[in-house]
């Protein structure tokens, strides 16, 4: 501790924290219902906070938000499927950009820019070689695009000045290309200022299955991201996977013992250089970008820069609850953590 200065004494004392004697006890109303303490499955969770780890007060109103991270987890949008004359599979989607205020933490509103009203946007899924037609409608007050990762012609890249370029408010455009290569990809808005368009929530996962399907599994989407609620572009106040921080702490991801679990993992975190995924009490095969069918690594922790993604495959041999979180523990403490709950 530094030596006390008279000034610091005066300030530290009289200014920062006046008075030691609590002249009155807490005079607040009845205690707020402790939503954080109850689990989705009817069993009591230990109360968080203090030495039990980070926690929010209360829970987010998913109904009002219009999306629920538990549903996003297994929500794959295969689009409207038909066949082209040559036999090629055609998949069509309509994606609407809109400005929505969402509750990102209990009692905290965030003016988001969204694809189909949710953060992250819908998980679009197809098979390699499929013809994709994505009709993008800009119902937002701001110009946007859809930029898909993958291999496609320049005019379908969804960046300003190329092809149709920026889609102005009220405008729409059909992005049309073949799904290549297989793997787990991303899509996001690519209008400047780019960081803000990403940080406001304009991203989603884009899964291209290999020609020969991967083995049957319980498939999950986990897109890592954050919210810079102060809009100062200096880090985030909230870190999350699939929209709402800490959601899977009180509503764990339920999986079956021994069943193959496949996680499509991606990182769209803005304002921080890297993110990571760490699983407790287990290891997984990791397939970077999912573009090869052989795993590159058997691990319990992977690191992804913004835009990186991969597939994690694993089985849980034991019952119980297993934590997963960013192994950047600051992100974990600020919301990016949850539980798997392994059941029979």
């Amino acid at each position, binding site marked *: 501790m530094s030596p006390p200065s008279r000034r610091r004494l*005066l300030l530290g004392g009289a200014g920062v924290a006046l008075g030691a004697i609590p002249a009155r006890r807490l005079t607040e109303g009845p205690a707020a219902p402790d939503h954080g303490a109850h689990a989705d499955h009817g069993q009591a969770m230990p109360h968080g906070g203090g030495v039990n780890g980070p926690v929010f007060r209360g829970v987010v109103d998913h109904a009002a938000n219009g999306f629920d991270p538990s549903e996003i987890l297994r929500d794959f949008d295969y689009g409207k499927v038909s066949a082209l004359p040559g036999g090629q599979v055609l998949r069509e989607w309509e994606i609407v950009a809109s400005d929505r205020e969402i509750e990102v933490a209990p009692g905290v509103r965030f003016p988001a820019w969204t694809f189909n009203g949710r953060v992250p946007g819908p998980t679009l899924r197809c098979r390699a070689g499929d013809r994709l037609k994505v009709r993008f409608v800009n119902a937002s007050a701001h110009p946007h695009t859809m930029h898909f990762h993958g291999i496609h012609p320049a005019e379908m890249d969804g960046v300003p000045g190329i092809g149709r370029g920026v889609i102005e408010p009220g405008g729409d455009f059909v992005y049309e290309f073949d799904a290549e290569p297989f793997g787990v990809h991303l899509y996001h808005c690519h209008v400047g200022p780019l960081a803000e368009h990403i940080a406001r929530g304009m991203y989603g996962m884009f899964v291209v299955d290999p020609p020969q399907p991967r083995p049957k599994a319980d498939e999950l989407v986990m897109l890592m991201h954050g919210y810079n609620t102060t809009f100062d572009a200096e880090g985030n106040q909230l870190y999350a996977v699939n929209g709402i921080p800490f959601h899977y702490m009180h509503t764990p991801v339920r999986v079956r013992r021994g069943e193959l679990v496949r996680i499509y993992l991606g990182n769209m975190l803005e304002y921080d250089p890297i993110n990571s995924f760490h699983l407790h009490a287990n290891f997984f095969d990791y397939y970077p970008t999912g573009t090869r069918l052989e795993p590159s690594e058997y691990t319990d922790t992977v690191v992804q820069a913004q835009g990186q993604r991969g597939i994690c495959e694993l089985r849980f041999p034991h019952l119980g609850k297993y934590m997963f979180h960013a192994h950047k523990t600051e992100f974990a403490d600020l919301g990016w953590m949850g539980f798997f709950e392994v059941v029979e």
Partner: protein
Amino acid sequence: MSTTRSLRLPTWLLACASFAGIVVVLGLLLLLASQSLPERTGPPAEQLAIERTVLSPSTIELTVRNTGADPVRIGQIFVNDAYVAFTGATEPLPRLSSQTLRIDYPWQEGQPYLVSMLTSTGAVIEHEIGAAVETPPAGGGVLALMALLGTYVGIIPVVLGMALLPVLRRSGPTVVRILLALTVGLLAFLAVDAALEGLELAAESGGAFGGSLLVFLGAGLAFLALTAVGGLQRRRSAAADPDRPNGGRLALMVAVGIGLHNLGEGLAIGSAYAVGELALGAALVVGFALHNTTEGLAVVAPLAQQRPSVGRLAGLGLVAGGPAILGAVVGVAVDNAGISALLFGVGVGAIVQVIVQLAPALRNQAGKILDPAGVAGLTAGVVIMYVTGLVVTA
């Protein structure tokens, strides 16, 4: 002529009518202005001032006051980048209202903490705890300790300084003049120091009750009040003995000014103790005491030509040093940076008033204040305060 006289209204009625007219017009103006002004746009101005921090094992308690224009709803709180459980302030805080938040956090002694309050709009209001120390429990023991500390840093050093009176009495008028100049230098230093402290405190208060204005308000009012009191006293003593230059009155004024300064010092000690910073403190108390010894000298300097009674000297010592006790006790209990800023302002006003009172006594036979002796005294006063201030820092 008689008709005009009968039409003339009584003064009180005229005053009432004028007053009513002013009220009506102002009311209309307010009504119209509020309608003609556009709605305020942009994000709400959210401000919270943290008025009190109480640390108990695994818990941080903050008393926050909304000092901004708009209601503030605290959504979540994170401490050192980790979201925490807390109770209190479940509803939005209206302007100027305060609430106590109880945060569940396993803080460690001596560590710094940054408490960040995430409001419903996503704004972050931060509160820094420099070094966490458990807040001492309330009780008579604390008050007794404060009284003791106040005595240590207030009364004892002042009385010690006063013990130099016999030396002063044997000194010539030039020495006395130098000492008086030294007193003024010392007081000027204190005035500037207290003003700066007060302004910084006012900044902490969030400005809801006037902010730095409180310091000037306190200073102005104290100056005026003391001038009035001094005037009354002068008239009385002038009636008793119009010829004698009144050293006793000056000494009392000096004692009052220093007393008000010591009130601020006590306040600082008390509130510092509240957050445990005084746990570091023996050196600090000694430093303050040394710093204050010169104040005793200042009190007796105007008495160099007199033979005051022991009782009178004791009284002066009490006036100059006693407020340190009061300040320490109040400092432990008071929970408002604004009040503290105001008290610092009062101290400044009192000191300035004393300087004004002392100034005539600094004149040499040619009527000059800034002759070499005067300048030497003034400089010595400032330097002494500066150096003893450094002792406190060490």
